[in-house]
Each structure stands twice: as C-alpha cells, then as structure tokens.
C-alpha cells in the first residue's frame, strides 16, 4: 500500500525529486488508490520549475548594454500607437548636453507629438531632467552647460541665434518639482505674473485669463473667494496647481513638468494627475517622473533614459507590458535603479 501511494505521489508530482515542491500542493484525496494504476509512466520527469528557476537566474544576468540598445526603438506599439496620425509639435535631433567634461544627455532624438503626454523615466542622474530643461533653453542660465544638436518647435530650432529665449519660455512653460508661488504675491498676481511681464495691463483681460488658468488648473473653485490672499498660504497641492495655473496663463503650447508631484500627498498627486489628463486636450506635456506607476497612468508615450542615453521610447502601454530592451525591463521591474 505504501509503495502504491509513493508511486501515486510521484505521478502527481514529477517535480518532487528536484524541487521539493509539490506533494503538499496536491490534495490528499487525489492520492486515492483508484488513481494508482498506470501512474508509473509519468514518474521520473525532469522538474519544469527547476528549469524556470534557472531561467530566472540567467535572465537577470542578461541585462547589459548592447550596441543595439544604443539606438533606441521609437517604433511604439503596433496595436495602439498613440502617436499614429499626430503631427510632431517638438522634436529633438541628436541633442547632447554637457556640463564641462560631464555628459548630461547624449545624442537624443525624440519626436514629441502634438497634445500627447510624454513621460521621461530613468534612475537618478540618467539625464531626464537635463533633457527636459534643454527643451525650453533653461540651460542658457547655467554657464558651463553646452547644448548641441537641435530642438525644434514647429520645425524651427529654438537654439537659433535669432530666437529670443523669453518668447520660447512663453510658448514652452515649465512646472518644477517644488511648488514655486511668488511668496509676496497674491494668488491673483501669481497667475498673471507672466502676462504683466510682457506688458499686458488691461484688467478685464487679466481677470479673464486668471479665471481661465485657475479653472484649467482645477483650482478656481477652491480659491475664487480669496484671490487676493498670498499664494504661499495655500496647501502644497494647491500651490503646485497655482504654479501650473501660472504656467498656463500665458497659453503655452508645450508644458514641461519636472516631477510635479514628488512633494505632494497621494490626494494632491491624484488631482495633478487628473489635471494632466484634462490638459492634454489643449497642450503637449512632457513630464519627468520617478514614479513608474504614474508614468504608466498618465502618459501616452514613455522614454527610458539611462546614463545619459535614450534606451527606449514607445507607447506607454507597450513599454510597460513588453519592453524591447533588457535594460528597460530590468528598470521598470525594479531590478535596478
């Protein structure tokens, strides 16, 4: 009887001999003697799980930089390419940013499509913020920074000597990691600061723009009765939405966001994410985020950077389900970074 049961358990569990898995996984009732006939044929199979464990080990060793990974895949997904049919609003061609002898980003070429959300992800120091700041000439303010290659906005190079960076920054707004309301200004003045800077003084127009921008930033209802109060009195999430409203007031075509929710609580983060979802009907958004779930939730396409190189860019859905590069897979799965 015991021999018979042993035979049965071997049949049930060909894995047993090599993995130690199994007998406990199979209900005892299945060990009924009625099942015992002809079972020896199945015994002695090699453990498939053992092979799986080996493959897990070997796959984690596969991650390395290959020459093919130097040229990122920009094909996107075949099933639902969010860029299909969209025109390119911005584009970087062989964009390289160096700080003295240090390379920030190296020869990055990405088309940025009209009214899309492009997320930039990668470990700290990979160059994503450097890339973002190059998109509205923020590096002009850093003496040792040198930008080569091209950044095109509607086909025109924003680094051309005839282009005024102030005009560029009006067309390409920016929201930073920490909320940046001007502390001495009221909520109202914060929103219209950009307009005043370019000389607009007409009160009715300023009022109209202020309401529109605050509404777009999903803040108007919360502050409409206290527009004259200092912006710095708002909560962190509200201050960040105020910063977004200020950026939107000048009616930008592209909005750059550098980890806009990293200092916010989950509820405020959720508000900003909702806002991004709404805003993309009107503006093109490029966002740097360390939160991969956020990138997966809010973006149409995602670009993965690693040590200054663009490793892969494609439809977010594809990048998070079937990345083409081992490095991308390893990073988004949490194996490094």
């Amino acid at each position, binding site marked *: 009887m015991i021999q018979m049961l042993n035979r049965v358990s071997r*049949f*049930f*569990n*060909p*894995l047993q001999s090599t*993995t130690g*898995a*199994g007998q406990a*996984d*199979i*209900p005892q*009732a*299945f060990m*009924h003697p*009625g*099942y015992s*006939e*002809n*079972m020896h044929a*199945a015994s002695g*199979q090699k453990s*498939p*799980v053992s*092979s*799986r*464990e080996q*493959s*897990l080990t070997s*796959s984690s060793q596969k991650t390395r930089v290959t020459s093919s990974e130097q040229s990122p895949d920009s094909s996107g997904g075949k099933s639902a390419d969010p860029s299909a049919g969209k025109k390119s609003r911005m584009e970087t061609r062989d964009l390289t940013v160096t700080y003295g002898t240090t390379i920030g980003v190296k020869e990055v070429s990405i088309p940025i499509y009209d009214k899309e959300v492009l997320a930039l992800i990668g470990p700290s120091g990979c160059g994503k913020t450097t890339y973002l700041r190059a998109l509205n000439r923020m590096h002009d303010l850093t003496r040792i920074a040198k930008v080569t290659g091209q950044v095109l906005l509607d086909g025109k190079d924003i680094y051309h000597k005839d282009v005024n960076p102030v005009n560029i920054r009006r067309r390409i707004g920016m929201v930073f990691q920490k909320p940046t309301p001007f502390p001495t200004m009221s909520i109202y003045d914060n929103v219209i600061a950009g307009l005043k800077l370019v000389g607009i003084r007409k009160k009715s127009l300023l009022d109209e723009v202020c309401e529109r921008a605050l509404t777009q930033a999903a803040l108007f209802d919360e502050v409409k009765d206290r527009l004259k109060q200092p912006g710095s009195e708002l909560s962190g999430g509200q201050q960040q939405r105020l910063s977004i409203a200020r950026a939107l007031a000048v009616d930008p075509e592209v909005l750059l966001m550098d980890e806009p929710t990293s200092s916010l609580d989950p509820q405020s983060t959720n508000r900003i994410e909702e806002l991004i979802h709404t805003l993309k009907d009107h503006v093109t958004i490029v966002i740097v985020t360390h939160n*991969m*779930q956020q990138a*997966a939730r809010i973006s149409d396409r995602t670009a993965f950077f690693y040590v200054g190189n663009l490793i892969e860019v494609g439809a977010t859905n*594809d990048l*998070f*389900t*079937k*990345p083409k590069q081992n490095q*991308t*897979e390893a990073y*988004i*799965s*949490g*194996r490094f970074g």
Partner: protein
Amino acid sequence: MTTPQTQTDHTSRQESNTMREAFKNHLVTIEKDMMAMADMVTLAINKSIIALKEQDVATAKIIRNDDQFINDKRWEIEEKCISLIATQQPVATDLRELIAVLSIITDLERMGDYAEGIAKIVIKLGDTPLVKPLIDIPRMEEIAVEMTRASMKAYSVRDDQAARRINKQDDQVDELYHQVQRELISIMLEKPSTITASTKLLWVAHNLERIADRVTNICERIVFLVTGEMIENIREE
C-alpha cells in the same frame, strides 16, 4: 569611509533586492502551484478514460467529487495572483506571467470540468455495454494529456516555438473526434436502440476534443508570455 548618504543608499538597495527576491519567490510558488494543478487535471483526464474503459463507477465517482480540489486550487492561485498584482504592481514580463497564469488556470479548471463530465457519463452508463470498442477515444485522451504536459514544459522553459508545435497536435485530436463521430452516427443509424449509449460516447469524445482546444489556449498564452504578442491559432514559425 562610507558616508551616511552612501549607507542609506546601500541599505535601501539591499531592501529593494530583498523585496525583489521575495517577489520572485512568490512568482516561483505560483508557477509550482499551476504545475501541480496541471498534474491534477491530467490525472483526472487519464483516469476518467480508464474508468470508462473498465466501466469503473467507483473511480468515476471519486473523479467527480475530486473536481472540487481542482476548482479550489484554481481559486487559490487566482487569489495569489491578484494579491501580487495589487501589492507589487508588476510590469513587463512579470505582469505577462501573472496574466498568463490567470488565463491558464481558467483553462485548466475547465479541462478538469470536462474530465468530471466524462466521469459523470461513466456513472450514468453503469453496466450498460459499450456500443463499440474504445480505440480512438483513448488515443484522443493520450494526445490531449501529452499536449497538456508538453504545454506545461514549454511554459516552464519559456519556449514559444514548442508551444506553437503543441498547438498543431490539436488537429490530430479533431481528426479523431470526427472519426469517432462518423462511426457513432453509423452505429446509431444501424441500431437505433443504441442511440442513448452512443450519444454518451459522443459526449466523451466531444469533451476530449474540447480539452485539446483548451490546451491550444494555454499555448497561446505561452506565446504571449514569451513574446508579448496575443495571437490566435498560433503555429510553428
């Protein structure tokens, strides 16, 4: 000397690696559970046909009752998958693996139901003599079980080409099913008194044909797991 910052980084990396290890272990456990479930299902299929051949009602009753264990195993694995998805937010291959498992265990559970269905037919037939000798039906069972085991092997080694090859065997099962169908229809036409018993055998063949179909679903999921492509009617490239 290590700076405090470096120490923090090092600690958090260690924690991250440990968490990653734990996640990997959960995935391995889920795979083992699925393999165990597949063993339960193949055994149930195999024994249901032996019970039919030997008209062994006692074994058939055990198979019928034990289907509950297969169902329980499916829910247990599903719960583990849902918990991992909720807590670990897997992506890429890890996500595809869990999605594949969720789909495969559904197919395995249904295959178990088909085996249970055959067992119920054996119980209903009782001592009623079989209308024909069983040759093609056991052959169908052999191929279906072989396909199931091979699919689990292909899953374990992540071999999408093997999965495509296994899929082709479904044609053999279909062919045998049509043969059994033709034969039983002839018998029924010739001897209408055998209609009830013949219909029962026809259901047995039908269940085996469906089991093989379910294996093709499993193979499609293996291709999805390995390549990320969702393709119906996969074939070897």
